[in-house]
């Protein structure tokens, strides 16, 4: 189809333009108390042509960003081995490095590269895990690096790494009075941004399906909010809610079959669920107050949401079967936009205290609440699929930016963009 072809050419151009600019750059502002020293040695390469990416550098940046590791600078390295037989453990002990990551890259005949890597324990002088390798094309070098980071992180912390995940976010660029809104998807480290949708009308509330293949979001059209579902790979999209009034806050159920959403078609904002296959709508709340910002519990049995039925906005839990509602948050002047960690242990909210909006973490067992952030006008928290980090939107030097804080509050970093305001982050689930 000619038309489609034109579109895909345009699509490619736009991606190219957007990746040349507007990348989010990471600035680490705070780390854990005890950092694990690790050396990521530049990977050996036998070929002649230049490699598309420096794998070791990406792995090093990933590990540093987690706030748990202290990479040994390359300039301090006494040798740069690429296989275990060439490793002098004594050298690494001198550098006080507990672990060493080494690797080698080999070009294969089919334009693929074989990337082998190993994680070594300096104290025991043994590999932590057997040598392993992956084959990738030049385009997927960053994926290979994040895969290695995930492996190293999991071997050393016992928690699955989330470096291979992606983020969705909205940017508003250009003239503030008539900005161009772009929904973008990028790697979790801000690299490789791609524009998914752009519009002169506002876009908000992006949300991932549990398999990471589809997204839902709110976009205005003709000055009214609509909810769309879009397949990421193809761009194929479906307008699923365009009722009178609010069409907002879409949230995918853990089984991928339903969306929770907010509609005010029956007069005021209520939580509904929409069965995506049958298009059947079910009203879940019934109250004259504002009910909004639904988010599913990991087991799908409950939906947490924001309601001001008690006077000011707080988080409530809706039992999906019985539709019984109970209040969940009691601390702070208000709590909104709750998200639950994948293990169901913690509830992350935007809490207001003394006029300040911060990201708060409530322990669902003990009820203890901890304020995680000290930035300005914090909102839109989104949790990494391994439950380790919360990405959120905040205001820094007068601009909207994304920032990340670990669930223990110790590790913090920012992802500012060179141009425009960035907002509404949504951290992807694991892919596969």
């Amino acid at each position, binding site marked *: 189809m000619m038309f489609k072809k034109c*579109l895909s050419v*345009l699509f490619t151009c736009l991606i190219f333009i957007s990746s040349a600019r507007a990348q989010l750059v990471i600035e680490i502002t705070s780390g854990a108390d005890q950092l694990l020293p690790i050396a990521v040695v530049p990977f050996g390469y036998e070929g002649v042509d230049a490699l598309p990416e420096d794998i070791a550098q990406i792995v090093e940046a990933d590990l540093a960003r987690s706030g748990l590791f202290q990479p040994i600078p390359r300039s301090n390295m006494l040798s740069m081995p690429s296989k275990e037989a060439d490793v002098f453990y004594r050298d690494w002990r001198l550098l006080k490095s507990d672990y060493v990551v080494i690797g080698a890259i080999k070009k294969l005949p089919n334009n693929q590269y074989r990337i082998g890597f190993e994680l070594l324990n300096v104290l025991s002088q043994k590999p932590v895990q057997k040598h392993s390798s992956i084959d990738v094309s030049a385009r997927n070098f960053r994926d290979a690096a994040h895969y290695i980071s995930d492996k190293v992180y999991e071997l050393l912390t016992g928690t699955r790494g989330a470096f291979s995940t992606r983020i969705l976010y909205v940017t508003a660029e250009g003239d503030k009075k008539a900005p161009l809104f772009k929904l973008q998807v990028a790697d979790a480290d801000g690299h490789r941004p791609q524009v998914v949708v752009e519009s002169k009308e*506002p876009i908000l509330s992006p949300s991932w399906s549990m398999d990471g293949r589809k997204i839902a979001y709110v976009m205005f059209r003709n000055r009214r909010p609509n909810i769309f579902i879009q397949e990421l790979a193809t761009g194929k999209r479906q307008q699923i809610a365009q009722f009178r009034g609010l069409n907002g806050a879409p949230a995918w159920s853990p089984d991928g079959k339903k969306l929770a959403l907010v509609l005010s078609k029956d007069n005021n904002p209520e939580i509904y669920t929409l069965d995506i296959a049958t298009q059947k709508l079910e009203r879940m709340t019934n109250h004259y107050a504002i009910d909004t910002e639904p988010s599913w519990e990991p087991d799908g049995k409950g939906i947490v949401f924001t309601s001001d039925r008690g006077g000011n906005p707080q988080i409530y839990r809706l039992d999906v079967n019985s539709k019984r509602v109970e209040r969940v948050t009691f601390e702070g002047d208000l709590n909104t936009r709750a998200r639950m960690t994948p293990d169901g242990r913690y509830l992350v909210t935007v809490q207001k205290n003394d006029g300040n909006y911060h990201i708060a973490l409530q322990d669902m067992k003990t009820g203890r609440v901890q304020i995680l952030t000290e930035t300005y006008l914090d909102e839109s928290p989104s949790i990494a699929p391994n439950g380790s980090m919360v990405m959120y939107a905040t205001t820094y030097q007068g601009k909207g930016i994304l920032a990340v804080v670990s669930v223990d509050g110790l590790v913090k970093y920012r992802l500012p963009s060179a141009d425009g305001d960035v907002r509404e982050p949504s951290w992807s689930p694991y892919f596969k």
Partner: protein
Amino acid sequence: MSVTKLGKFAVIGLSAAWIAGCSTTATDTDSSTVAEDANSTEQTNGAAENTDQAFGAGQGDAMTSVIVEEEVTTNDNGMDSLAGVQTVFYFDFDKSIVRPESREALAKHAEYLVSHPDARIVLEGHADERGTREYNMALGERRAKAISRYLTIQGVAASQIETVSFGEEVPVAFGHDSNAWQLNRRVEVRYE
């Protein structure tokens, strides 16, 4: 065309023809990046052209974010009695109570709408940047509804009024201070 009669699946302000266009969109594979413009060009049936082309062709100012003043001034078909009447109404923080100083201007809008039963307005509610975005969508709607109630009490038919919220997405003032926040907590009256 009475849009409210289209039932709950209708897009307000759009015709049934456009809705047919939408279901096409649902199954079409449109390249996402250019989706906005692509969609507009895809939908060439009937009234769809008007709504969507205004948007697709909106390289200029057809769909800029804050166009209330422009809209009102361009819409001068027999609206002389409303000339100079305030179209933006402000609210207190986290509140949706119509302020006393808004009443006089709202009474003039009510009077006009009662004497022009074919006239239609959209009340566009807005919030300041503080607080979360979807909660602010709800708050903006609540403010628009407060104005709507004020008008219906004075005899305006509910069918003449549509309420929409932009939440905090379309500010008119861009500072991060109480002045800017005050200007952004508002409802704008837009004649269709």
